[in-house]
């Protein structure tokens, strides 16, 4: 009989990739990572093809405010592999020591109740470096584990009404990954929509009344032929990456060969890809700094808004997503100014799923976006995504 303890199982087993070679971005003390069932994760840099998906994921690493990524497409095309490999690219971040939700010591507005009261009592919270969580939300999860609930063991042994955080708490300031998000139960989708919109998880159940920050980047993957995605949830995702079965024979063979090599000796394989991974990680760190430096200029924003108008996009999420992701793309390329070609490269991903007025229309692969772009941003010759990574 296995005893489950919150701590033993709580460490996301995927975030186990070593970051030791990573230059610390903020000089803080490190805590040893309890890595649970750690096994090497397939390196992101070794993923063949699927440039759009990779670009979308990288952009949301650079700027979490883009609003997450929905990867839609055929099964068996590396969706889960890509998302799981994200953990290996993420830099460590500062967390409040001992906080259940991994609060950011530098943003007082988003502190949880515990941290706030600690601050009020005096003294800055001690900060430690920890991994950015990449949390898997399995399909069979029940609501109490997603939202959190009464800590039954403490209640039984100490008679204390303590809160046991759920997956949303674990995912705070990190990534929440839902594979086959279209198969997620409706009541869980409701919970997710609620929390994703507010950034706070409000728990009122079993005598527990608590509110804690739950800001996460939602990453979902699905195959539309296995079931529909609720339109509200679809709209929640910032970028919509399409993924197809690779038809190029060389690439296909490459995929199989790399996968075989990885399975034969994961450690060796990761070692071989170490330099590439490090290069990518350095690029991301630089991009992280750049993205905070400068906003897109007004004329460009006007043009982005125009594109959305021409396409008849409801709401403003379209423009916002384009502007943010274009800036993130510029930063990924090491530039501090956003150009029209950046906009061109992200527009389809940001707008595609918002064009659909009718649930039955198949999601446009970007032709109409392309056309609108040609009208409004004529000079740029559609730079291809293949350059991205």
């Amino acid at each position: 009989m296995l005893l489950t303890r919150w701590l033993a199982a709580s460490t996301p087993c995927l975030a186990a990739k070593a970051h030791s070679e990573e230059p610390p971005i903020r000089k803080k003390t490190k805590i040893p990572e309890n890595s649970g069932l750690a096994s090497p994760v397939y390196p992101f840099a070794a993923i063949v093809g699927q440039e759009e998906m990779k670009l979308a994921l990288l952009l949301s690493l650079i700027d979490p405010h883009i609003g997450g990524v929905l990867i839609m497409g055929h099964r068996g095309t590396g969706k889960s592999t890509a998302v799981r490999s994200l953990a290996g690219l993420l830099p460590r971040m500062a967390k409040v020591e001992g906080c259940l939700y991994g609060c950011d010591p530098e943003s007082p507005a988003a502190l949880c109740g515990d941290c706030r009261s600690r601050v009020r009592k005096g003294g800055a919270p001690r900060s430690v470096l920890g991994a950015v969580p990449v949390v898997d939300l399995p399909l069979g999860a029940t609501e109490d584990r997603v939202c959190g609930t009464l800590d039954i063991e403490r209640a039984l042994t100490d008679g204390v009404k303590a809160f046991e955080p759920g997956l949303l708490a674990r995912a705070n300031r990190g990534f929440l990954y839902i594979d086959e998000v279209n198969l997620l139960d409706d009541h869980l989708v409701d919970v997710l929509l609620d929390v994703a919109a507010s950034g706070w998880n409000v728990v009122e159940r079993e005598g527990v009344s608590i509110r804690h920050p739950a800001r996460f980047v939602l990453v979902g993957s699905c195959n539309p032929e296995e079931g529909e995605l609720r339109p509200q949830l679809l709209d929640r995702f910032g970028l919509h990456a399409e993924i197809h079965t690779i038809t190029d024979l060389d690439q296909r063979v490459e995929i199989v060969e790399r996968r075989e090599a990885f399975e034969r000796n994961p450690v060796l394989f990761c070692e071989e890809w170490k330099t590439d991974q490090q290069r990518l990680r350095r690029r991301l760190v630089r991009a992280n700094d750049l993205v905070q430096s400068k906003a897109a200029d007004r004329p460009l924003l006007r043009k982005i808004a125009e594109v959305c108008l021409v396409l008849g996009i409801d709401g403003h999420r379209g423009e916002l997503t384009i502007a943010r992701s274009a800036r993130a793309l510029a930063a990924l390329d090491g530039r501090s100014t956003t150009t029209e070609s950046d906009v061109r490269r992200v527009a389809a991903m940001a707008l595609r799923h918002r064009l659909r007025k009718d649930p039955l229309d198949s999601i446009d692969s970007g032709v109409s976006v392309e056309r609108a772009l040609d009208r409004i941003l004529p000079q740029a010759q559609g730079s291809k995504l293949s350059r991205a990574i």
Partner: protein
Amino acid sequence: MAKAVPVHHSLKTSTLGEAAQEAGLSPALPYPFAAITGHRLPKLALTLLAVDPSLKGLLISAGPGVGKTTLARSFAGILPVQPAPYPYVEVPANVTEDRLLGGLDVEQTLASGVRCLSPGLLAQADGGLVYIDGLSLVAPAAQARIAAALDSGLVRIEREGLSHIAPARFILIATYDGAEGEVGLSLADRVGLMVSATPEGKAEDRAEIATRVDQYIRDPQRFLHRYAAQTSSIRRQIEQGRINLPGVEIDRASRMQLSKIARTLEVEGNRADLFAVRAAKASAALAGRTAVDDVDLATAVQLVLIPRGQASPAHESDPRPQAGPPEGRNPAETAQPEHSEKAGRAAKRPESRGQPDIGSLDQPSRIAQLVVGSTLAALPDDAARAKSKPRGRVASHHRGSRRRASKSPATHGRYVGSEPKNARVTRTATKIALDATLRAAAPFQKSRRAALVQRVQEEVQANARPGRVPEYDPRSVADGTVYPPKPSNRVIIKPCDLHVKKLQRRSGMLFVFVVDASGSMAAGRMGQAKGAMIKLLRKSYLNRDSVALVAFAGDSAKVLLGPARSVTLARRLVEGMPAGGGTPLAAGLISAVKLIQLARKRLSGQAMLVILTDGSANVALNPASQTGGLGRDARDAAIRSELDLIGRLLAVNDIASVLIDTGSRFVLNSKCRDVAAILRARYVYLPHFEAGSVFEAIRQPAANQSRDRQ
């Protein structure tokens, strides 16, 4: 060959021995692999799987009584003895999620006050075999969990207050009958090998099978002994294969060839390539080769790629239109997936164009005969009385299901939450939500224990008999006084703490569109009907209903889409639907009814037939009335009586129906009204299909009906 073992619809997991006993076989002595005749491909697949377990599993599809279960069970016998014993776990088709993944261990948790996990079946099977009979009957949600576990080798539990990750690396061997439903696409994709087993064709082979099975049943011990040498030689071969496997090389050209075939067959995703390479290597290793040759490639194509081509594993029930036959010149041409005819299965690909060839001529008619027979058999004696019964009031226990008794909806479904147990819910059968109960009781434990200790002391004092401590009596739970021998760590639960599970079943209507795709529909009306259907699909999407699609044309009907919520897929199918040939309305209705009966095994809720036709049914189910020199009138009379029968069948099965007349306005068509009257379906005629209103018309009474029932 041994009869297929029935699926156990009990919560208890059957062990190999019990299952075998039930099938009349000797426990723990499965029919030996070596004694199985025929089944070249399935046997090959099993040996490859034994050589390379990273192929993840095998799906065997076959009709009943073909021996798929025997094949699957024999597998354990050929596995190398070395790292034995392998865990062997059987998953029943009605498995619940908590048994599959693991859940709260009631006894342990109550005894210790600490949450204990009872490991699920998948975790128990770590390092061994998972065997599922009737995989297509497993709930879609459970299939998705199995797929996730196969993929990652882990089981993630986030339920009932438990958070746990357990390793679950297993080989999945599953059998299913395509006539009983489909296997989820994502699960099928994650299993390496797929084959369809066919019954032996030749009489002497069949006789040989019968002889062997007879010998086996009479004296399993001796039978096994006779094949012991063969079995161990197969096992040795597999052991040698495992040793050879790491040394097998596959050159780039062969890899390219496999990928190319995968591309040609329009295999979705790139996972298949990896499985194909593994299968080819395993085949070479088994044969003792160090390099993969053409034979190995052919094997890989047969077992991995062809079943995944657009015709997918459930090629018979595959909803998607065939993307043309796989291109000839590949080495596996001989291994086209066979379409083993299933008795009593009405759906057959509509031969919309041209003459059906001679070979297939007698097939549909035989099936049609069986269908008429089974329709008659399905009708209870008092079917005639059902005629006048208002539809929608037939209680749910009327729908018979061979596999399991119908269950009250309140006791089944997904565990979505809990509520305090009160007098109202006490009467109905409910499930105690242990986690919630414990949580409710937890905060009071300290005070209750203190009170209890005090009470015990008082009692001891009152009795003035020192040394006598009241015994623990479970019955006293009811009155709220528990006398534990050690009051320190036992959880004290009072009736007011009890919580029951709130269960949710997938609800929503199941709409089955029965679409006339005959020649008379071709003249522009098909386009109209398609437009209407797409509008209806949109509406049903918004209502979270499920949709199924049956088309009939030529002399048969075909299920284009099983109950699904994917309107994307439904739309694609509707748009690609051809039209032409006769109007076998009855065949279409029968497949729809069968589909609904099947769907009700998995989902609850109302079903509704939406029939789109111009009413000119001209193909009878019974071929005798079709060909045998009978006049037009006689044929029409036969059709009418068939439809009448189906109308009763609908009433008995509690299926509401609507007939949408697609006939043109100018031809005053009373046929449709007639048909609707015979079927006791509601008749709707809307010239240009103002689909929104059609939908309202369809849904409204359905909604009323379901309200009436409550």
